[in-house]
Every structure is written in structure tokens, then in C-alpha cells.
């Protein structure tokens, strides 16, 4: 009896130690490469569990307990209503803006919200950027899950960590390339 209890205790301790020592799963990576004279590269690697633990403790200005206060409406646009309409619609391109020097497309595809910006400015100092943003709809839903006038960043990160590897933002420009992505590796490539 005593021996069995000891074995059970050792197994329990081993499992508890493994769980407690388990590395945080998802990492969020940011990489900024400047192509200018400085040629600077910035790489930031943060475990998502780090953001999840720290965010609720921050109470500064508009960010409190993982939630950012905002107006709720941007240029009289109710974000929640727009999101609900997008979520309930089949995959489609919802917004297309074509200008001589820029095109913007907002679409829903494969459970993701996709935003594409393409700049085609001409001229000596034209610094064109191609921007691609891909956010899972579950993350947008989580972001908008707080009270009116709040963006629940913490819930958004929780939702994001449930997704696998994701390419969130890429900005390819003449002066700068930015990439934000998530994966389970603790290093940038």
C-alpha cells in the first residue's frame, strides 16, 4: 500500500514538474528591416504567454487590464455591426478602393479578414509600400468582445494563441520591410 502510494506520488510529481516546466507554446515575432542608409534590422521575439501575463497588470492611460478604451465608432462607423455583417456573410471582397496611386482591398477568406494595400506612387521620393494584413475572424471577434468602447486586446491574444503559425502583417516597402508573425519557434529565421 505504502509502495503504491509512493509510486503514485512520484508519477504525480513528475507530471506536475513536466507541466510546470513546459515551455510557452506560441511566440509572436516582429522583424523590421530598414533598407535606407542605416540598414538597421530589429528583431523582437516574445512568448505569447508573456503578453497574456503582463497585459492584465497594465493600467496606463487607455490600456487597462488588457483592454483599450476607444470611441467605439470610427468616423461614425460601428465596428461591431460591421464585423457581424462580415462574419455572417460568405467569403467575399467587401471593400475595394482603387485610386491612381493606391488600391485597398478588404476581404474575408478561409475564416480570416484580409487587408491588402498596394501603393503605386510615382516620383523621385515615392516610397511605395505593399501591406498585407491577415487576422483570424475569431481574433477580431475576441477583440470586439468587451464592453462598448473597448477593444479586448487580451482576449484577442488568447484567441490568437489558439491558432497555429500565422503570418499576421507584412509590409514590403522601398525603405522598410516589416513582418509580424506567430509560430512555436523561439527564434526569428
Amino acid at each position: 500500500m505504502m509502495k503504491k502510494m509512493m509510486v503514485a506520488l512520484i508519477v504525480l510529481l513528475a507530471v506536475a514538474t513536466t507541466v510546470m516546466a513546459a515551455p510557452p507554446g506560441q511566440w509572436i515575432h516582429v522583424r523590421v528591416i530598414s533598407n535606407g542608409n542605416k540598414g538597421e534590422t530589429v528583431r523582437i521575439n516574445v512568448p505569447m504567454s508573456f503578453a497574456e501575463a503582463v497585459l492584465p497588470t497594465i493600467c496606463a492611460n487607455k490600456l487597462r487590464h488588457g483592454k483599450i478604451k476607444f470611441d467605439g465608432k470610427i468616423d461614425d462607423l460601428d465596428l461591431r455591426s460591421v464585423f457581424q455583417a462580415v462574419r455572417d456573410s460568405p467569403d467575399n471582397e467587401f471593400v475595394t478602393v482603387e485610386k491612381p496611386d493606391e488600391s485597398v482591398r478588404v476581404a474575408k477568406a478561409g475564416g480570416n479578414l484580409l487587408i491588402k494595400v498596394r501603393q503605386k506612387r510615382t516620383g523621385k521620393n515615392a516610397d511605395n509600400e505593399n501591406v498585407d494584413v491577415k487576422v483570424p475572424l475569431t481574433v477580431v471577434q475576441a477583440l470586439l468582445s468587451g464592453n462598448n468602447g473597448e477593444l479586448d486586446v487580451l482576449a484577442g491574444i488568447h484567441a490568437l494563441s489558439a491558432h497555429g503559425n500565422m503570418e499576421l502583417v507584412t509590409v514590403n516597402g522601398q525603405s522598410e520591410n516589416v513582418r509580424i508573425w506567430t509560430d512555436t519557434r523561439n527564434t526569428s529565421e
Partner: protein
Amino acid sequence: MHPLAIKIPAVIMAVGASIVGTAAIVTYDAGAVRVSVVEKKSHGTNVHVIVPAVLVPAVLEFVPSHNFHMKSGETRKWLPAVKAALRELDRCPDATLVQVTSPGENVNISKRGDSIYIDVDDPGETVHVSFPVPLVRSVVQKLEESNPGPPV
């Protein structure tokens, strides 16, 4: 020679050796704070400081608490965030957290084992700072004790 004349020094030496050994193990286990600044100009200043981390909390006890008083509650409200960050850093696997590389300057912040390593290399100087994460926790605790206030 009386047998006690041999035994007593032998016991004293054994006790002394075990105290030194234990202290060495505790010191090694707790890590150290390392600060190194090397100026690159000729005849530049080189500063190398290594302090066993185990000494720092003891030294903090002797520092008058008014030295830890923060002038505004603005700083105090960040302490919970720092504590949460330290807890997570403890759990976080070894990794390079921030890396900035440019032709003139390199900055590297990484976590290895229990310690945080900060390396800055610019045309003027090379700076290396490393410290064990648990040590920062004791500093934060001292800051909290010296700045009592409502929970933030």
C-alpha cells in the same frame, strides 16, 4: 603531542571548508550581476564589476528605504507589470528577445538560464550587463515595501 591538538584544528578546517564550499555552491547557484563597460578609444576606461547575486538582497536590507522612494505613483503602477514579466521570464525558454543590428551598433537582449543578458556594441564602447531574473524580483519587492500604497 596530545591527540586533541591534532583533532581540533582538523575539525575547524573541516567546518571552515564546508562553510566555504556551501557558500561557493550557494553563490554559484544564485548567479552574479556582471557589468562590463569597455571604451574603444585609446586609453579608454574599462570597468568590470562582478557581484554575487546572493549578496544583493542582503545589501538592499542596509540601504535606507528613502532611497527607494519613487517620486510619483506613476512609476509604482508599473510594478505589477514588472512582477508579471519576471514570472513569465522565469518560465520562458532561452531565447533572444530583442536584437537590433545596424552597421554602427548592435544591441542584444537575451535570456539564458536564469539570467538576462544585455549586450550593446557601438563605435564608442562595448557594454555587457547580465543579472539573474530572481534578483530583480527582490529589488521590485524592496521597491514595493518602500512605497506602500493601495494595490494597483
